[in-house]
């Protein structure tokens, strides 16, 4: 088997200032299963979306089946050329039946009797991949549990009508499958590659990757950092490849006056390890994105099954959707958390509000000459500072942060880190979900999440990128 199914040369992709892909060479041969691993923000999803035609590369060459692709590589062209993708968030229409969802990816299923043809097609493929699946073609997707939805979507990706099937990209395909169905899928992957179909497998379960792949590609910071046949990798060498080569020296800020004062937050419902935060501590939440960190923050915020002593404020990471009030001024965006405290005779004390706004503009060094300007006149980093000011200016003693430094420049980050440190020294508690390793160095203790639970608690002295990776990617039974 020679040639390539799909080949990227020097692919680059930027989102604003963030460089998601920085020159990636990547290729897949016919009948090959390529495992793709990497930590958060390594660029796996971006790469996959570019291959599937749902994102356009900023630079670089793409060739499919040996032909160079001119113009835009769209989702429908990818479909026509036999490139399929099973996305991590499912791409089924919940209001349609399984058979109707098959029709959506197959333009050729139409005319009289289309529904029974689509039903027969998906039923046969489900029987082949997941014997004993218990899914009927006319079941509505919204009535199926999440595991069965995932099975239906995976099976759909392998159905063939008039268009060829060359490459299927599976992004965390087993995330909602139980052990038995996951094994069925991996067995099918081996069988399907034997028939000449290529598969790209993305998974945080390294055992799956090692067992199913012919070749493993490791990504980090938008680049391919290692690429070898699967048998030349072990769990440990994979984890090592995902980590950075250079060891970071620990930020030399020994905890200043760790107060022995009582517990601020304690949550015991996330697995065997309890999350505990004392007054004046900075607690890090780590692990792969979407493994329960944000849910933990929301649980603490909502005080559901969580012991929380003190007022809580939340710093959102997704500024656009959960953070700024677009049509408000910078000042109002900062003081909104505190209006209850700024009341006098039931109305807002405008003078006090202005004082608060002015004070925090200075303390956070927000770069504006007038806090009455609209929030959107600020750069992203300064908007984020305003959101920090909103939390810090309030009476909250516990500050929850949901990966707040996304897309923030390095200068701003340093200023905010200093602020967090001094506020923690003053007795505030920070619980900080972050996808960046370096930020964990600022934390007194780090909890690593996997599958909605805490799998490791690392004190600052024990913290290393390797240990976080080990915990994030560990198998269920070691």
């Amino acid at each position, binding site marked *: 088997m020679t040639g390539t199914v799909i080949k990227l040369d020097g692919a680059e992709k930027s989102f604003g200032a963030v460089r998601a892909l920085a020159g990636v060479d990547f290729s897949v041969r016919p009948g090959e299963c390529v495992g793709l691993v990497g930590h958060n923000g390594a660029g796996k999803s971006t790469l996959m979306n570019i291959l*599937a035609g*749902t994102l356009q590369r900023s630079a670089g060459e793409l060739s499919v089946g040996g032909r160079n692709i001119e113009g835009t590589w*769209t*989702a*429908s*062209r*990818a*479909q*026509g050329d036999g490139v399929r*993708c099973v*996305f991590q968030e*499912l*791409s*089924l*229409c*919940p*209001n*349609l039946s399984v058979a*109707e*969802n098959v*029709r*959506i*990816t197959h*333009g050729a*299923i*139409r*005319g009289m009797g*289309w*529904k029974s043809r689509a039903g027969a097609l998906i039923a046969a493929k489900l029987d082949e991949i997941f014997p004993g699946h218990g899914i009927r073609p006319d079941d509505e997707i919204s*009535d199926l549990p999440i595991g069965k939805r995932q099975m239906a979507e995976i099976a759909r990706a392998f159905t063939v009508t008039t268009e060829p099937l060359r490459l299927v990209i599976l992004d965390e395909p087993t995330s909602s499958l139980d052990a038995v169905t996951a094994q069925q899928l991996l067995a099918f992957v081996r069988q399907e590659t034997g028939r000449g179909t290529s598969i790209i497998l993305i998974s945080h379960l390294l055992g799956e990757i090692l067992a199913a792949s012919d070749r493993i590609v490791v990504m980090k910071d938008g680049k391919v950092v290692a690429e070898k046949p699967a048998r030349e990798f072990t769990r440990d060498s994979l984890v090592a490849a995902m980590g950075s080569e250079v060891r970071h020296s620990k930020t030399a800020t020994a905890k200043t006056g760790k107060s022995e004062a009582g517990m601020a937050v304690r949550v015991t419902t996330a697995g065997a390890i309890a999350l505990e935060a004392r007054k004046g501590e900075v607690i890090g939440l780590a692990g792969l994105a979407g493994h329960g960190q944000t849910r933990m923050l929301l649980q603490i915020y909502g005080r559901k099954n969580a012991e929380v002593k003190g007022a809580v404020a939340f710093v959102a990471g997704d500024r656009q959707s959960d953070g700024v009030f677009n049509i408000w001024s910078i000042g109002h965006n900062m003081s909104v958390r505190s209006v209850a405290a700024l009341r006098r005779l039931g109305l807002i004390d405008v003078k006090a509000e202005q004082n608060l706004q002015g004070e925090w503009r200075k303390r956070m060094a927000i770069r504006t000459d007038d806090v009455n300007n609209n929030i959107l006149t600020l750069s992203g980093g300064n908007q984020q500072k305003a959101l920090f000011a909103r939390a810090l200016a309030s009476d909250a003693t516990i500050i929850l942060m949901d990966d707040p430094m996304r897309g923030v420049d390095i200068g701003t980050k340093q200023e905010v880190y200093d602020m967090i440190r001094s506020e923690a020294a003053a007795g505030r508690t920070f619980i900080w979900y972050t996808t960046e390793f370096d930020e964990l160095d600022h934390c007194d203790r780090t909890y690593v999440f996997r599958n909605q639970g805490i799998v490791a608690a690392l004190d600052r002295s024990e913290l290393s990128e390797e240990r976080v990776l080990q915990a994030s990617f560990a198998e269920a039974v070691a």
Partner: protein
Amino acid sequence: MINRSLLRQALPFLSLAVVLAATFYVQPRTMSYFGLNLMLQYAVPIALATIAQMFIITVNDLDLSIGPFVGLVGCVSATLLYNDPFLGVLALLALIACYGAVGALIHLRNLPSIVVTLGLSFVWLGIAVLILPSPGGKAPDWLKAIMSFQFPYVPFPIVAAVVIGLVVHVALMNSSFGVIARGAGGNPKALARAGWSLLWTKVSMYLLAGFFGVLSGLSLLGLTTSADAHVADRYTLYSIAGVILGGGEFVGGRVSPLGAVVGALTLALAGSFLIFLKISPDWQIGAQGAILIIVLALRAAVTYGEKRA
């Protein structure tokens, strides 16, 4: 135990049966060919407007201009179509094309459909008043003939409603095109990933809505025989209520054409029922609202139980 999912689907039909039974009980003389014909004749334009609204709701939008649009169609038909059939047909086609353009605008500029169509409702009304400042005009004779057609044994409005419901049901629920349209409401991103054009899907649904809006206007004119710009102002809310009564949901591409027609019939009947109860017209809208709330509360109860089961 009763199948709750089946119960939810049957709810629109049960509501219609209850309102029908109540009407027969209050006024037994309506239980006749003539009585039903009289009571339900205005259900045909309402059903058509409801179907138009349903197409828009399928793609997660809402049309607040359908009432004035139906009124405008009536005004155009009673003047232009009556005097010069060719120009009249052209004008009606142009109106349908406008709907398609509005759909494209809403999709391309990512505008809230409620705002755009609310603005448009004043535009339609304005044009209608310009065409026909005071009620008047004449319905084309063929239109009057269609709408006063006497079907043997079964009243015409019932036959018309069943035909409309079945045709649209097959087109939207059973055809391979209908799946794409409903998919666009259920998960637009998935549809785009599969290579479908969301723009064209939306435009087609708006065009269909425009087409059924025109049918609604024509059928209404056939009944009233002369036009009035304001005659269908209430249709906007009737059509939305009809879709929802019929088991549709505002978002998620969950609609039911048969249900929508049944919903429209229920609303039309509820009007007659309240008249028979001698409720003063001042209270009628409120009473209709109460019926709507009761049915929706029932549905919410059924759905809630279904989720817990």
